[in-house]
């Protein structure tokens, strides 16, 4: 993956370095030339003003001054006799031509200026090494500030880029934190102009994606609905046939056929439910749900089936406890679990339901004496269309997926495990609320956030819970929780 920051940093610093170094080189050169020109004019000044000099050793105080740096001055008269020579004397041959010249003498390079006025010849020389050193010093002083600024500029650019890209990170985080159901476009405020086409593109993609998702969800729902019409026709035809040929072998076949259509109808119903829960991850309306009442009504629906199968269906413990949720969905959840328990329990077995509070949670257990689920298959039982049960028992593998979907929407925990002595225990748990909590309308349409808010609210008002006369007295009901388990014993904490 290419990093915009790295590329930008690399290019700007490289460019900056090249420009900087070039600038430094030019400054170096200019400063060096300047220094040399200055030194030349010094040579000339000395030559033009040189007269008889005083003795160095006689008058001048001793100095640390390096004699190497000194100018060498020599004056000749017209006859070519030396009138004055600076000390230490360096023998540089007298030049016959006035002006500047580069001369090699006494094993060194010299810059020489010669002035001739007929009577005298003055020749001033300066070591080339010294001149070069002075020019270099000047040039380096000119170039160094530029060289120092280059790394400073790198740091500055890096920091600025970081700040700019930080704004992109904010946008990225906002996108990453979006809920799957969120249909609002990503806001363009605060997004850099250059990046906004990307965000606009993403928004259009999100919209199309939502459209496709909606279509897919609608397809499942539509398909299920459409299947109902031919299924109804089939059921009616079978009923008509039974009416006319309900006896003997044909009758038995028709009964089998009817069973088949009933299975198909049940599958269509489950598919529809699944599609509905898939459409949104949040519960539309939440209200306090009286769990014993809810479980009693689930039980009532199963009583005829349990009786015809010879399964003893009943409640072992029942204490008043409330949870927050959508009643119809929660009923679906428990109905599915009880239906499973009855379905997989053979004749003569028992299904026991217990409901009650457990600390800050409400606990419902549904325990059966059925075939149970092998331990290694337990993690997969919530997968769609996965069946752990013996193949001779009817089922479509969607029931527990629906249970899980509803539990997730309500923030309930669900657990399946073996029951002591054979069978299965299903446990669902959530947070308790008190019965009399009034939830503001603003919280009635909730996601998990507002569900938590509603629970907090209930926790705060828990002490004022009203009780009906039949409800057992219990400690301050503050929070709600549910456990469904299949176990004949009391609710386990």
């Amino acid at each position, binding site marked *: 993956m290419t990093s915009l920051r790295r590329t930008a940093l690399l290019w700007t610093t490289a460019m900056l370095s090249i420009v900087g170094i070039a600038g430094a080189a030019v400054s170096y050169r200019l400063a060096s030339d300047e220094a040399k020109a200055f030194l030349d004019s010094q040579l000339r000044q000395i030559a033009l003003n040189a007269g008889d000099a005083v003795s160095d050793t006689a008058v001048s105080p001793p100095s640390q001054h390096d004699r190497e740096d000194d100018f060498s001055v020599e004056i000749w008269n017209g006859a070519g006799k030396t009138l004055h020579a600076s000390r230490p004397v360096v023998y540089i041959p007298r030049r016959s031509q006035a002006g500047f010249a580069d001369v090699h003498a006494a094993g060194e390079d010299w810059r020489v200026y010669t002035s001739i006025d007929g009577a005298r010849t003055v020749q001033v020389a300066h070591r080339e090494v010294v001149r070069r050193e002075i020019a270099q010093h000047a040039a380096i002083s000119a170039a160094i500030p530029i060289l120092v600024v280059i790394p400073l500029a790198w740091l500055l650019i890096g920091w600025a880029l970081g700040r700019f890209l930080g704004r992109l990170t904010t946008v990225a985080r906002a996108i990453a934190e979006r809920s799957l159901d969120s249909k609002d476009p990503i806001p363009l405020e605060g997004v850099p102009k250059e990046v906004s086409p990307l965000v606009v593109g993403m928004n259009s993609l999100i919209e199309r994606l939502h459209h496709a998702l909606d279509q897919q969800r609608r397809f499942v729902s539509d398909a299920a*609905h*459409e299947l*109902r*019409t*031919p*299924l*109804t*026709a*089939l*059921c*009616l*035809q079978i*009923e*008509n046939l039974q*009416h006319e040929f309900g006896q003997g072998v044909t009758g038995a076949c028709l009964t089998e056929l009817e069973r088949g*259509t009933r299975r198909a*109808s049940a599958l269509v119903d489950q598919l*529809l439910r699944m599609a509905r829960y898939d459409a949104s991850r949040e519960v539309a309306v939440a209200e306090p749900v009286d769990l014993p009442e809810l479980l*009693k*009504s689930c*039980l*009532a*629906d199963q*009583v*005829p089936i349990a*009786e015809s199968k010879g399964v*003893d*269906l*009943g*409640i*072992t413990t*029942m204490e008043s406890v409330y949870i927050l949720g959508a009643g*119809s969905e929660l009923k679906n959840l428990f109905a599915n679990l009880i239906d499973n328990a009855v379905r997989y329990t053979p004749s003569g077995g028992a299904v026991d*339901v217990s409901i009650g509070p457990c600390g800050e949670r409400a606990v419902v257990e549904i325990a059966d004496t059925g075939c149970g689920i092998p331990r290694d298959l337990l993690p997969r039982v919530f997968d769609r269309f996965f069946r752990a049960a013996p193949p001779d028992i009817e089922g479509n593998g969607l029931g527990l997926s629906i249970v899980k979907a509803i539990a997730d929407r309500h923030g309930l925990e669900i657990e399946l495990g073996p029951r002591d002595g054979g069978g299965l225990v299903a446990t669902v748990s959530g947070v308790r609320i008190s019965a009399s909590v009034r939830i503001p309308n603003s919280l009635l349409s909730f996601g998990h956030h507002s569900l938590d808010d509603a629970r907090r609210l209930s926790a705060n008002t828990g002490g004022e819970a009203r009780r009906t006369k*039949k409800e057992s007295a219990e400690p301050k009901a503050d929070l709600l929780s549910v456990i469904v388990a299949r176990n004949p014993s009391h609710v386990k904490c």
Partner: protein
Amino acid sequence: MTCAGVMRILLIEDDPMIGNSLAKALRDLGMSVDWVTDGLDGEEALAAGEHTLVLLNLGLPGKQGLQLLRAIRTGGCRVPIIIITARDELDGRVASLDLGADDYLAKPFAVRELVARMNAVLRRQSGLARSIMEAGDMTLDLDTHEVSYRGTRIVLPAREFALMRALMERPGTILSRAQLEERLYGWGEEVESNAVEVLIHSVRKKLDREVIRNVRGAGWMVVKAGS
């Protein structure tokens, strides 16, 4: 299960397979069935005002079922209407009942259940609803205290009648012993510990064990129609 007398049913259903087989099933039960396949024909047929009851499918061509329902009711026609639909969302159910439908049945359904609902709607319309309660195969006459179950008809004594009335008011709902005692005995009245069981035993003996179901740990109930 069959309806006495000649009932003339208007079936508004666009699916030919369902229309055909439902019409045949109802005719076999001795009803006269007029079957139309779209909403406009349905409206026309209704204008004659000869039908006892209308079975209306919601997803119709020509005129949508709900529109037709609204048109019928705003036109002042009081004929009983049962909605039959593949859509079973709560909103659709509430909307059609608000618009004046008498009942709502989701596909797929059994003819038995449809006929039971038709009978219930008709009874309610003829003003019998207040005096007769129904649950599954059982009816209870509130005026005569007469209970009927699969051909058996008997008049119940006061306490037994009160018990059955409590149970049949909400078929499919479990009532606890406390709830039943509250309905059967006045405040301050001494209740013997097994009074409710004695009454239930007595009713079961007269009719059948199955009429009152016991749910261990929860209470007693009578089953709903269709379950």
